[in-house]
C-alpha cells in the first residue's frame, strides 16, 4: 500500500489528544454536576440553618471557616484544622466550579447562535474560559483573605 504522507490519516477513535475545547466541554459537565449536588446541598443547608436559628447557623459556619468573620488563628486544635481545610477546599473548589460553569455557559450562548466555530476562535474561546475562571477564583479569594487580614 502506498500512502501520500502529506495527507492526513483517517480519523481514529482511539488515537487523539486533548484540546482546550474538549477539556472545557467535559469541565462544564463536571462542574455542573458538582454545583448541582455539593453546591445546591450547601446552599440549602445555609438557608435552612439560617431559618432554624443562630445555633444551627453557627454549626454551619463552623464547618465552613471562610464564612465566619472571625478569621483564622494558629492555636486551633487538630479538629478545627480539619474543618478549616475542608471549608477552604470546598470553598475554593466550588467558587472555581461556579466561575468555570458560568463562563463556559456564556461561551455556549455564543456557539448556540452558530458563532465561534472557526478552529482558532473556538480554541481561544475555550482557553479564555479556563483562564478567566482561574483569575476570578484567585481574585475572589485574594479579596476574602485581604479582608481577613485587615479586619
Amino acid at each position: 500500500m502506498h500512502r501520500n504522507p502529506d495527507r492526513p490519516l483517517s480519523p481514529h477513535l482511539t488515537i487523539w489528544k486533548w484540546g482546550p475545547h474538549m477539556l472545557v466541554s467535559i469541565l462544564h459537565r463536571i462542574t455542573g454536576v458538582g454545583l448541582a449536588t455539593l453546591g445546591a446541598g450547601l446552599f440549602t443547608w445555609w438557608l435552612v440553618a439560617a431559618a432554624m436559628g443562630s445555633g444551627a447557623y453557627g454549626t454551619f459556619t463552623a464547618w465552613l471557616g471562610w464564612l465566619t468573620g472571625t478569621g483564622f488563628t494558629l492555636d486551633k486544635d487538630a479538629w478545627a484544622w480539619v474543618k478549616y481545610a475542608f471549608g477552604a477546599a470546598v470553598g475554593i473548589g466550588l467558587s472555581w466550579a461556579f466561575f468555570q460553569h458560568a463562563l463556559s455557559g456564556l461561551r455556549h450562548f455564543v456557539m448556540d447562535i452558530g458563532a465561534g466555530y472557526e478552529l482558532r476562535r473556538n480554541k481561544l474561546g475555550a482557553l479564555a474560559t479556563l483562564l478567566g475562571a482561574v483569575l476570578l477564583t484567585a481574585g475572589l479569594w485574594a479579596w476574602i483573605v485581604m479582608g481577613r487580614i485587615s479586619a
Partner: protein
Amino acid sequence: MTMKTPLAQVRGTGPAREGAGHWRDERLSSLAVLVLFVWLLVSLWRLPGLDHASLVQWLSSPLAAAPMLLLVFTFFWHLQMGLIVVIEDYVHEEGSRMFWTAMVKFAAAGAGTLAAFSVLKIAIGGDAG
C-alpha cells in the same frame, strides 16, 4: 399501513423523548440563575458581616427575600434539567433512566422546597432565636 407522516413517526423517539423545549428552558433558566447569583454575591459582599443576625436582618426585607426565592426556584429548576441531561447520556436502560430521573426530580423538589420555605420563614416570621 400507517396514516402518520414520516415526521410524526420519529417525533419523540430520541433519548430525551421530546423536542427542543428542555434545551431552550435550560438556557433560559441559566440566564436567570447567572443574574440572580451575581446579585446574591454582590449583596453578601455589601453586608456588614455574614453572621446570623446580619443575614436574617437582610433576608427579612422583601427586596432581598423576593430575588432569593426566585434564585431558589430557578437554581433548582436549572440543576434538575442539567442532571437529567447527564442521566439521559449515560444511563441507557429504560427502567434505570426513569428511576434516576425521578430521583433527581424528587431530590430537587425536596431541597428546593426546604430552601424556599426557609427563605419565607426568615422573611415573614424572623428567626427561631
